[in-house]
């Protein structure tokens, strides 16, 4: 491993509200903190679901229009299929010690990572601070996001 260059800070943007849109960002943020790297998560657009009280326990895998699933589109659209596939995936992840989204977000907040919501998206979905989970440290603008991200890497998932 090269010791010459190190990453000291990452800012990860989460814009999708599906299971497979949210988990990679959480895993990368948590992994950054585990390596002693400063990390912030910015939830924007549908990514906000991951930090919205009414929704964070009900994140589902996209079973329609998701070629990675190798499931016929018509089948993926049948009632109950998204829940079934999501539960199957969650069980597999649990065996790998990957926590459910609410527990994962609490844990990431405990590692000292920042959790922020995008103001434009909060306005768009007519949410306010009370709709978001308590781990959210602020509702910030794009400009404020860039201020936070200064001096580090920005990852868009």
């Amino acid at each position, binding site marked *: *491993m090269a010791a010459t260059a190190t990453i000291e800070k990452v800012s990860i943007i989460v814009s999708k509200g599906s299971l497979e849109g949210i988990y990679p960002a959480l895993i990368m943020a948590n*992994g950054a903190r585990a390596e002693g790297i400063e990390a912030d998560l910015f939830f924007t657009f549908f990514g906000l679901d991951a930090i919205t009280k009414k929704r964070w326990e009900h994140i589902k895998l996209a079973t329609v229009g998701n070629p990675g699933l190798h499931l016929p589109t018509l089948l993926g659209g049948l009632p109950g299929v998204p829940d079934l596939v999501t539960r199957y995936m969650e069980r597999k992840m649990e065996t790998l*010690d990957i926590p459910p989204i609410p527990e994962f977000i609490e844990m990431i907040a405990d590692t000292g990572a920042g959790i922020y919501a995008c103001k434009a998206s909060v306005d768009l979905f007519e949410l306010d601070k009370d709709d978001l989970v308590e781990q959210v440290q602020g509702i910030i603008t794009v400009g404020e996001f860039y201020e936070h991200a200064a001096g580090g890497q920005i990852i868009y998932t």
Partner: protein
Amino acid sequence: MPTATYADTAVPVDDEGFFTDPGRWSEPMAEQIAHEQGITELTDRHWTVIRFMREQYAAKGTGPTVRVLGKTSGVSVKELYQLFPKGPAKTAAKIAGIPKPRGCI
């Protein structure tokens, strides 16, 4: 393979300084390894984590993740990061003389 000298004893380590033979570790080595990791003094709380790492390694052949540490060591995730700011699982594994834990969580 590189070696490191702790408590006047040369021990084999990997390229990143993790013990490759946990049997060669002894408690007096911990303080010196901790200093190299930027931890000035090992408190009782540090030792709770270090001993837990050794037990888990002995039982499972690998160091625990931060999630497991937070749930079962008696030290919360928040406190773990206060004790080991540069990453609890990795830093504690190094101080505890066990190989680097490998995992994405």
